[in-house]
């Protein structure tokens, strides 16, 4: 699976949806993922990709990781994987 497919699978599982219902422009809010679901998703992504995501739930907008929609999450992970190189 590509990074994109894996991230969509993780988010879909968290949202209790089918992967095809998760689109690149979906926001976590629109998928019904609350703040606890968000930290759980980040945990699952870190586990799946063996990366550490710089995300602070106290202040998501100032974290160095953009969670505004599914596409931005995928882009962030791809950047972290590339840096890990």
């Amino acid at each position, binding site marked *: 699976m590509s990074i994109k497919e894996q991230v969509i699978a993780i988010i879909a599982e968290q949202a209790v949806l089918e992967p095809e219902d998760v689109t690149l422009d979906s926001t976590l809010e629109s998928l019904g993922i609350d703040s*606890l679901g968000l*930290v*759980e998703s*980040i*945990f699952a992504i*870190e*586990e799946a990709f063996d990366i*550490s995501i710089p995300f602070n739930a106290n202040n998501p907008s100032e974290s160095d990781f953009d969670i505004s929609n599914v596409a931005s999450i995928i882009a962030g992970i791809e950047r972290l994987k590339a840096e890990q190189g």
Partner: protein
Amino acid sequence: MKRVVITGAGTVNALGHSVPETLTAMREGVCGIGPLSFRDVERLSIQIGGQVHGFEAEGRFNRQQMSLYDRFTQFTLAAAKEAITQSGLSFHGELSAKSGVVLGTAGGGVSTWDDNYRAVYEEGKNRVHPFVVPKLMNNAAASHVSMEFNLKGPSFTVSTACASSNHAMAQAFAMVRSGMAPAMVTGGSESMLCFGGVKAWEGLRVMSRDACRPFSANRNGMVQGEGAGIFVFEDYDHAHARGADILCEVAGFAMSSDASDIVMPSKAGAARAISGALQDAGLNPEDVGYINAHGTGTAANDKTECAAVADVFGPHADKLMMSSTKSMHGHLIGGTGAVELLACIMALRDGVIAPTIGYQEPDPECALDVVPNTARKAKVDVALSNAFAFGGMNAVLALRRV
């Protein structure tokens, strides 16, 4: 002051996944203690316990719930559902706003601590699941009961080792008696049967390798159990007005502290709690027909408890019955008094005294009628439930037949 009655009971323990299953097992003197089954059990020197079998989270809870519910919370929610269903109460409006949940546990989410320490120390992982804290915290079970059943009044968790659930139920009783709450969900739970939980107890060298034999001269220690006991305590007038089935009355309680030793029990401290409960309930010693003993099966507890009972009751000590059901379900630590309260309810309501099983040899230092090995029929008007914790913290409840 209000009279307080019990209108619902629920449990999960080694003897059964419900109150009827548990009472049937107690009547029949079933032993729920057996070989432990969990990861790394072969590294333990103590390999027996009163483990709950056949209670799977899968199918009972959804994925999100399982990520938040430690096993002690799972037991609690199942028992609370049974108790609240039996009570017939549903919490809305004023009843919801004033009713709460006070529970006891000694360790809280012990297996959550255990699993995650294993992950970071043994397996070298550097990341744990985000819900580790809300899953392991001692008040998690009480919180989830409040959320599940819409209890918006006073709720908290009491932790006094082996007396936790008796202290919790005493507190809930006091809240209903004072008029602060029309009903309270109360009791306790424990789930320490995992590698770290049993390993810690092993260290004390008070555990039996073969059986829990309270009051028997050849007793050789305690055996851990797990599970939950949950009750609905309700203002008598409130229960009576709605035609609720009343299981028994909670007549009084007392708490005392030995203020002497962190592990060794004190006869004086235990006696003050027992006599205090009688006084609080306005009862004479002669009124008591049955005592559910703390009866851990250790050398120290059982002789000290018998001596305290002899001191408080005088000649009547030879007429009353005192059994320890820990011989069947094991010692549920912070949940033990709650499961043992079921034996008191059975004595009062059904006239059946649960036995002390595994009894083999009389001990002159425990020379009371401990209802050895076989249940007995008897009419009992008043029953006491003893709990004497490490740290010297004691809580005794007095129950009366209605």
